[in-house]
């Protein structure tokens, strides 16, 4: 009988707990990444967030120097010289990372593949990077949601900063999925449907933004190969839009010389990104506009942060 009561009590509490969880249609806390644009702030800044215009408290903050996981995802497909330059730059930067920055390595062609679990053993990461090969088909657009979902789960599991860094050189023309809308009937001279050929890219980016709008990890992308044709410009703009939507950052290498500098800058930005846990008022729109200001001593400082988020618990 005692066991029965015990079991019943256990189930009751579990059900109540679970029901309570389900009943809470919005999470009470969510986190956003934030980054100081100028690094002249000697002490910790004071963040003043608002949600849909209402001031909310910062429940916790993880700043530079705190535990961090960087998931580096390689999406390299083309010019070996750029890939090699990127490899060398990353190796140099990874070797300088502190021990409490763990690095995981993944590859994004033909789905997402783990090459190295997050580890403080940076030499192991360097060895993996050193042996990376290129493939002919980029996969960033196909895998970025999965990568951010993974990082989001890690953030929700443990109080660490988790960032995703894509290193890519892909062109929109190289994707397996048809974003460039090739002409199928070459004799169709009156085809006006392809006058605005970037529409498919815009649609894909829009869908991805919607899907990642409830994920909390910031996305950083380094495009190793800047391209000037119209479709690739739309693609590059789309990648930038994805990073901005997550509070991350995007950079392109206009020349080979830029590769080390851009990668190094991006690693620095990841390292100096804060994670702020904000309290959500009980009754609030599930699509949140975030306002954030920060002061450093007596002066306000310029910020980059995630300005919009959709609550996952909706």
């Amino acid at each position, binding site marked *: 009988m005692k066991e029965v009561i015990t079991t019943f009590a256990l189930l009751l509490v579990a059900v109540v707990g679970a029901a309570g969880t389900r009943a809470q249609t919005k999470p009470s*806390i969510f986190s956003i990444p934030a980054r100081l644009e100028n690094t002249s702030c000697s002490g910790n800044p004071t963040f003043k967030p608002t949600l849909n215009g209402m001031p909310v408290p910062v429940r916790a903050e993880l700043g530079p120097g705190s535990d961090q996981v960087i998931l580096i995802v390689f999406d390299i497909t083309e010019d070996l010289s750029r890939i*090699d330059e990127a490899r060398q730059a990353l190796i140099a930067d990874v070797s300088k990372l502190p021990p*409490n920055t763990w690095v995981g390595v993944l590859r994004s062609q*033909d789905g997402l593949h783990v090459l190295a679990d997050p580890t403080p053993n940076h030499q192991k990461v360097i060895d993996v990077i050193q042996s990376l090969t*290129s*493939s*002919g088909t980029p996969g960033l657009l196909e895998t970025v949601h*999965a990568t951010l979902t993974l990082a989001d789960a890690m953030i929700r599991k443990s109080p660490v900063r988790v960032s995703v860094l894509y290193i890519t050189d892909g062109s929109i023309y190289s994707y397996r999925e048809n974003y460039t809308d090739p002409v199928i009937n070459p004799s169709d001279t009156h085809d006006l449907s392809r006058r605005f050929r970037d529409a498919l890219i815009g649609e894909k980016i829009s869908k991805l933004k919607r899907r990642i709008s409830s994920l909390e990890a910031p996305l950083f992308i380094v495009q190793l190969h800047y391209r000037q044709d119209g479709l690739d410009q739309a693609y590059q703009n789309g990648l*930038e839009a994805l990073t901005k939507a997550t509070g991350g950052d995007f950079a392109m290498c206009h*020349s080979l010389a830029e590769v080390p500098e851009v990668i190094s800058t991006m690693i620095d930005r990841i390292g100096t990104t804060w994670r702020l846990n904000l309290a959500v008022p009980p009754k609030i729109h599930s699509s949140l506009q975030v306002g954030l200001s920060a002061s450093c001593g007596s002066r306000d400082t310029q910020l980059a942060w995630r300005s919009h988020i959709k609550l996952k618990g909706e």
Partner: protein
Amino acid sequence: MKILFLALLGLIIAVPAAHSSPDTQKNSKQLSGEAAPLTRATEEFKVLTGKWGMRPNSPPSAQKHFGPKMLWHGRVYEYFRNDSLDAIPHEVNQNGGTKSPLHRNQFGFSVSGPVIIPHLVTNPQNTFFTLSYEGVRETISRASLHTIPTAAQRNGDFSKTVDQSGNPLIIYDPATTAPNPAYDPSLPVSTSNLQYLRSPFPGNIIPSDRLESVVQQALRYYPFPNTDVGPFFENNYFVNSPQYDTADGIIARVDQSVGNRQRLTFQTAISNGFVSAPKYFPNLASPTAPDQHYSRWRAEISHVFTATANTVNSFHLTAESNVVQSGTGSQTPFPIYQLAGSYLSMGTDFPNSRNARNTVEVEDSISTQQGKHSLQLSFQADQYQVNSFTPQYPSGYFQFSTGLTSLPGINNTGDPFASFLLGLPQYAERTVITAPSYFRNSYQSLSGGDKYHASKNLTVSVDFNFKRHTARVEKYNRQSTIDPAVLDPSTLKMGALVFAGRNGIPRGLRPSSINLDYTLGLTWNPRGDSKTGVRASFHHWYEHMPIYNGQWGTQGFNARQTFTSANTQLSPALDLEGGIPPLETPLPDLSPSAADNTVADYVDMTNRVPVYRSASLSVERQMPFAMVVTVGTDYSAGKDLLVGSSTTSPNAIDPRYLTYRDQLYNQAFRLSLQPYPQFTAFDLYGLYPAGRYQRNAGYVQVEKRETYGLSFTATYEYSRQYDNYSGPYGNQDLINLSNDWSATPYHTPQYLQLSYIYDLPFGSGKPLLDLESWGRPIVSGWSLSGMAYWNDGHPLAMRPEFNNTGDVLSTLYANVVPGVDPHVSNPGPAQWFNPAAFAQPADFTLGNGPRTISGLLGPGQNRLDISLDKRMPVGDTSLDFNVTAFNFLNHANWNYPDTTIGPPSAPNIDAGRIIGSNGGRVVQLGLTLSF
């Protein structure tokens, strides 16, 4: 106690589903140095990546656990156009039309993702496919304005026919021709010194019994005027007839990964369709392209092998076929009646033809990174086939000019339609094809390159391509050409027909071309500033002799019967009623004289091929506000470019012989002045290497990456392009091409282009109208794209109204009047340029003006296209509704002005004027479901 413990445990189980409590969070200082959170995060990483099939030891099918619905992506779409959405095109409106029927549906789908076949292909990470289909069903009206004879003219009544200045145009009776006993050969032919006397038709009316019966039968197929745009009786037939277009096509691709290092890809594209050109008249005499059925396919197998992190090998095998069948072949084609001047002709060339172009290509390429060198080496071999059956004039071609109804030697007399009514062609031709031709050639190349990273800020590249193009051969050696070095036994003159593979003549008639292309490039960041990039390149390359569709260069096996007038002012080429007689010698006729007295096909037997070189220099600077500015200059030039018979001819008469004046109308005398008088002319088929061009350009491009939802690119270019071959009416001097060096007629000196995308700032996640209510799906997901361009017009080309050069020059340029500015202060349709700046050259003289007037441009073109997109999420899919307006502002672009310059005695009153405009807003609706 135990109950309490279990209850607490239950709470702990329940809570993690929610977000971690703020109390469990620690600030950075507290967390620093603690490994546990990192370990927990990493464990989560391992668990999830294992569960989602992302780890090397994951079961192959595990990845589909990460949302199987996401494995396949694609879209289904429909684009719809209908004239009820459009503005009436300006050219239709101006001609009184109230409708321009259009029905168009363009539909298709595209899907891609992993291939999963139960028990056969189970690893979703190894095999991928893409499949796309698109179909088009279209009926679209095409408007055009023409000149056709009036009802009176069809009956021989030219009493109201006027010239370009509005004065009566006199039609002379060729049956009354007689030599003028008072003619003084030492003086030019003129109205006061006629070489031949000829009487006008009484009342300027051709008697009905003189009208040729064959022509009268043909005229039953010819329409009557239906409008009167003018000037005078010109531009009197407006047609807005439908064009039909049906097309279907698929693209399919399968990728197979073999381990991490190899990838095998198979791709194929198949399309076929039907195109029916708009008919000027609704019968077989319409001078429009015949209906076409086409089918194409392409298949490619690729293998990419990543040998090491620094070395990749790629192999491609491609096969391609493109077949176009024109005409039905079920009925006898209508003969072509070509009327000189502006009259609409009858009949079409190539009424029944079939061309099949097949290509097989194999290529292997290896790339490797060795220290500071990026090296590449490739080998490529192609095999081309062109199987062609193309009788150009199977029912005959008959050309009618003013000459036979003119007063011989006097401009502004006679009429080509009057010559037609009398059945007096000045030239006739018929094509006799006995069998299709099966042309072949091949290409081999060995190419390589090195990109050397000399320093962090300097990269130098060198590329080369050592290549061989074989000459065109025919499967059964059924090729021929005129060889200028061979004696024609019939005429004892140099130049005779020779045949491939016979008497020491190579199968390809000309040698293979073996050339080395090369490119030098440099990328430099000055002073180590990576935000500034300088790029420079120089490229030198050779083109090859392509195989065009058609059976040019097969005389002897096929025939081109040619009939020319002994004197285009005095006698016809043949009797139209009798038609074209049968061939005198049956085919094949492999005698050296088989092409005598015809327009002979001339293959250049040297090893010359087009040579190009280009250089570019640009500076790119990254600017604040996410902008990139590029400033650059380009130079390109070419020589020995492929040109046709209207540009040059090895059998052309030197223009200095124009001094023979009216004697030149005597064909025998005129031909005696040609280098190869036994041939009427040479047909070069656009494959004679003699052209030259040069282009210089400077440009500025500003690219703005997205901020606040807006991104744009703006480009401005200024360029100059000159050449010696590009028309628009042919060259005046076919021997000295340097005399024809002028601005390229299709060149646009300046253009400004702007394209932009703007995600409208309202809806979900946007600053405005971020509604929670039902209105949220309505206001969210809007974006606006646009494209606008402003182009200069092209350089205008003046041409004189009359070409009295004894049939020596097929193209004559206008004279430039010194000191008269061709520009007008406010160019418009009433007067776009000043025609007084140009003049008709005197008889038997070259025009002294250039081929095109570089500083005098036609009307510019501009257009603004806009596309409005609305994206609506539907679960995991999305629906995209799209409205695109081409020429959104319904802007009318002017047509080009009349550039025909008449003499003072009969000026073209239309010179410099513009008749009408074109264009009109077109709206397309699109609906795409993406998944």
